[in-house]
């Protein structure tokens, strides 16, 4: 250091202060204390879908701890639900008012005009659900809530690609996910288990005790689909220590958990129906514990066992730490979260508090290391530019192009949030092209993104290299370079 002249050293020191984080993450050893701004950028990056105008200044004003508390206790839903009337309907209302069904035998056939009209109408609930989700993700002040809605939806994934589920993804999110994102895991589990979207998507509505009085037609036998995913994906995890026999037991316990059928579909208020005539009332053994035949109560008992099982605590904690900290989360953190999960009977808010307070979450080595999924990247870009005019339909279309169509992940494990799942050459070129188009403005009035507000919104997050490329480029390119920078691809 001695050979630096004083002046050069000062410049060097300034650079280190500003970009210290980035130097650290590339060299792997601490250089200087993390800059305060980097801490703020980090907490916003992880608790929200990226900073929007005013966010950095807000966190500076209230402090990081209060910001976290604020986000953990969301204010009332800011969305005008009246604009999306189908989100206020029950599943059965949706099916009756928007479901596309061919007329029964003996009824007059529909004309092609009528068919077209019905089909068009049947698309409304899905469209409203997508728009509402994207509008909330982009502009809700309750950002952590939106992050957790996305997280839990993926955890308890259902796909609009499967039949009737298309009508129900919006109401599923509204009824079974949103109310519980910071609540008790048991409540969340129960709400998804009895929701028609899940019952249909994972086939449990057909799950029937063979030879039971109600068994006939396609409702003749055991269907293990939901029971298996319940153990493997929703609760204990694939290495949770259960056996194939436990899967079969769980499936038997859940026989008769279904949907209104036949004429019931025309009148039923409740979408969840327990059909005792298709239920297996025999005595079962699950994880070595006996479960007596007692109808629907068995299923509740099963969910109780699962929601408080140590394997479940471990599995959920791993996934939370993977989302908020690193693709391969530190095991010590996962253990601590699991302990908290067990100590609080699966209180999600408590587990998140422990997570955000942890040394690992606040360790600068993890800053900016989570590769954004296409969803996260697109929302972040819309938020950064603060454009109220971003059309949800454009975002939804772009998501499709990036192979991450909203509500249409076909596999029950939902979309991954790791770098290995999403980083590839094709996607990188598309992201950069999109960022450039975005910065220039699109639609009829092409108003380019304003540079100064964007700089303020994003704050000091760029590496020395990125910053020098931005500074050395023509002014009309700089917004595109910021939005398409490597730092914007990570959170």
């Amino acid at each position, binding site marked *: 250091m001695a050979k630096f002249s004083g002046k050069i050293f000062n410049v060097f020191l300034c650079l280190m202060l500003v970009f210290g984080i980035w130097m650290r993450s590339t060299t792997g050893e601490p250089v200087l204390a993390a800059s305060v701004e980097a801490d703020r950028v980090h907490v916003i990056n992880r608790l929200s879908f990226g900073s929007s105008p005013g966010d950095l200044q807000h966190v500076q004003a209230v402090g990081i701890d209060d910001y976290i508390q604020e986000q953990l206790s969301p204010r009332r839903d800011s969305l005008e639900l009246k604009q999306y009337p189908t989100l206020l309907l029950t599943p059965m209302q949706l099916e009756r008012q928007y479901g596309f069904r061919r007329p029964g035998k003996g009824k007059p056939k529909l004309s092609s005009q009528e068919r077209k009209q019905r089909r068009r109408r049947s698309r409304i609930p899905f469209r409203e659900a997508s728009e509402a989700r994207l509008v909330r993700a982009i502009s809700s002040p309750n950002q952590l809530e939106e992050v957790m809605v996305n997280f839990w939806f993926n955890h308890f994934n259902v796909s609009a*690609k*499967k039949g009737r589920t298309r009508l129900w993804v919006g109401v599923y999110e509204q009824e079974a996910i949103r109310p519980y994102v910071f609540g008790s895991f048991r409540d969340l589990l129960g709400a998804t288990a009895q929701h028609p979207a899940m019952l249909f998507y994972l086939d449990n509505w057909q799950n029937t005790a063979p030879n039971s009085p109600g068994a006939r037609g396609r409702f003749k036998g055991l269907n293990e689909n939901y029971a298996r995913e319940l153990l493997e994906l929703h609760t204990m995890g*694939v290495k949770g220590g259960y056996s194939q026999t436990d899967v079969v037991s769980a499936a038997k316990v859940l026989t008769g958990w279904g949907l209104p059928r036949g004429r019931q579909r025309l009148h039923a208020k409740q979408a969840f129906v327990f059909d005792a005539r298709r239920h297996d009332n025999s005595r079962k053994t699950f994880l070595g514990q006996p479960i007596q035949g007692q109808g629907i109560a068995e299923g509740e008992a099963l969910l109780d066992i699962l929601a408080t099982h140590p394997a479940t605590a471990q599995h959920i904690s791993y996934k939370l730490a993977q989302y908020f900290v690193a693709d391969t989360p530190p095991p010590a953190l996962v253990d601590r979260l699991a302990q908290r999960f067990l100590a609080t009977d699966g209180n999600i808010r408590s587990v998140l508090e422990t997570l955000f307070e942890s040394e690992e979450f606040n360790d600068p080595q993890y800053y900016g290391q989570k*590769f954004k999924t296409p969803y996260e990247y697109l929302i972040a870009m819309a938020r950064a530019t603060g454009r109220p005019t971003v059309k949800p339909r454009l975002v939804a279309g772009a998501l*499709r*192009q990036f*192979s991450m169509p909203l509500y249409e992940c*076909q*596999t*029950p*494990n939902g979309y*991954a949030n*790791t*770098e*290995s*799942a999403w*980083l*590839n*050459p*094709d*996607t*990188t*070129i598309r992201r*950069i*092209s999109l960022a*450039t*188009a975005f910065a*220039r403005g699109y639609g009829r009035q092409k108003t380019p993104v304003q540079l100064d507000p964007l700089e303020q919104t994003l704050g000091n997050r760029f590496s020395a*290299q*990125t910053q020098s*490329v931005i500074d050395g*480029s*023509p002014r009309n*390119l700089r917004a*595109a*370079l910021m939005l*398409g*920078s*490597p730092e914007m*691809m990570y959170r």
Partner: protein
Amino acid sequence: MRRRQFLQYATASGVTAMGLGWLGKQPVYSQSSSGRQPKLIVILLRGAVDGLNVVVPYREAGYYDARPTLAISKPGEGKGAALNLDGQFGLHPALADLMPLWQSKQLAFVQACGSPDPTRSHFDAQDYMELGTPGNKKQGDGWLNRVLAHLPAGRPTQALNLGNQTPLILSGSKSVANLAFGRQAIRPLPLDRPPIQSAFDRLYEGDTNLGRAYQEGLEAREILKAELNTEMMKASRGAPGPSSLKTNGRRIAQLLSGNAETQIAFVSLGGWDTHVNQGSTQGRLARLLKPLGQGLNQLKAELGNTFDDTTIVVMSEFGRTVAENGNGGTDHGHGNVLWVLGGQVQGGKVYGEWPGLAESQRYQGRDLAITTDFRAAIAPLLTKGMGIESKHLNQVFPGYSSQKALPLI
């Protein structure tokens, strides 16, 4: 993820060992000397094509009983009759363009083939066929992407998907280039403009995961642009549906035989879900088959000498019911016919054990049974065709232990 890491590790550290094994055992191609590269094109007919009307079992009385209006008549019985293949099966007359390939023994069929999973949902069945793991959706990547892991590393255009969105069959850790249909194929991007590109080049020059992805992505784009430039001048018409194979065949051929060195290409064609008014020698199915036959034939012509090194597979998620329904169509069934074309193919033959169509011989009393797992048909195309070692087949198709391989190649 663990499996993937293992593969990366295996390819990074075991290059020499694996390479030697390859040179010794490889039947048709040696990786180094000949300069010839095996190619595989997979065409997925999404929606379940009616295989019983593609390769018609015209000796079966059950076929004609079950399909009073849809059946294709026996070879020689009037206009629009099936074209005789082997004295037992006949080809749909709309596929007449393929007969020369059949006669030159470069076209084979595997009848009563398919995925053993019982599902009749398009969505599940296509996923299973693309993941290569029937009954299990946990596999994180598609089998064609896993095939790539066992080929010598190539250019970023080594694997190509025709379409905007990487399909499940090609998704995974290996990079894949997407080529849009029709006139969009090489739509100009902002990134093509030199000042923009050079700025991003500087932004992404680092040797990080992201930097490498950027550089590879740009390289793939440059190759595609260079290869397709002349063709683009001729201004193609972008036509959807099976006729898009005709429109895009030239492009695929060019990328396979040119500098792009594409080895794996995937195309999916839709519109086969013929529940209503399927038609017989004329009608909806015939109108779909005609351009498909022409497209395949044209693809062969465009490939020129490269066809000698190419294998083309045409498959579909499941077959359709043996009996026609009340709407002049067929419903979701089980077994189907799989098509194989190529320079190395032992063609002119319908493979697979024929289970018969009597009600007792059908799957669940209604559908053509499956006697050949689709993976058993594809396995020889990978080993003998693409030079993948047999012992690596269980990495392409995990959990599958091979039935006796069909001598398709």
